[in-house]
């Protein structure tokens, strides 16, 4: 199950989805909206996705997990979009395996890879403004004017 959704995520939903009779260990990761970024108070986050591409990438990640950890039984990766309050989960990953080491490793690989390749963007809403998160500045660099560049 690999899905971009506007619905709230829960640990139970992913844990239950990956629990199968031959799996003895279930690792779950939840990415949760924090109340601050580098000390600046965060009120909420807004997530936006290239939905069809994001779901395709989630599926790729899941298939890579099955390939790298043959002991893994089930993988579920869900990512929420829209506006999320502090304490709500933006991403929920569940991995079950016969043995726990595989479940932990695969779950960690999955979240690391989600952050690296899945086309989702977040904007932080502060008490006094907002900013997209990422490598680029919040807006065109100071001094830049339309017509500059090539």
């Amino acid at each position, binding site marked *: 199950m690999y899905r971009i959704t506007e619905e709230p995520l829960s640990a139970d939903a992913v844990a239950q989805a990956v629990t199968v009779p031959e799996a003895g260990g279930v690792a779950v990761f939840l990415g949760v909206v924090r109340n601050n970024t580098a000390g600046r108070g965060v009120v909420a986050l807004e997530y936006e996705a290239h939905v069809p591409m994001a779901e395709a990438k989630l599926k790729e990640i899941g298939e890579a997990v099955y390939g790298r950890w043959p002991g893994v039984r089930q993988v579920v990766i869900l990512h929420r979009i829209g506006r999320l309050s502090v304490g709500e989960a933006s991403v929920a990953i569940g991995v079950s395996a016969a043995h726990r080491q595989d479940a932990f490793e695969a779950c960690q690989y999955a979240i690391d890879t989600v952050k690296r390749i899945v086309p*989702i963007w977040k904007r932080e809403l502060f008490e006094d403004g907002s900013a997209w998160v990422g490598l680029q500045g919040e807006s065109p660099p100071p001094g830049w004017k339309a017509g500059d*560049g090539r």
Partner: protein
Amino acid sequence: MRVPVALFARYREAVGRGRVEVEVAAGATVEDVWAALARAHPVLMPYRPHTLFAVGTDYVEADRPVRAGEEVACFPPVSGGGA
């Protein structure tokens, strides 16, 4: 040919909408599509160095030719996933 372009995150906001079309010559590459996009929306120009491109559900390099009927997506580095 006319190529639909999908924009996300700050690119979408900068342009004011998430989908535009640009006119490029047959045989144009993704880079040519970007150039046409940036000419029509110069606010995007400074973003080029970190821009990612996709066609369909796959990332593509800027030198990839665009075929008729394909949509090109342009977007900033991704930032999903939480902590």
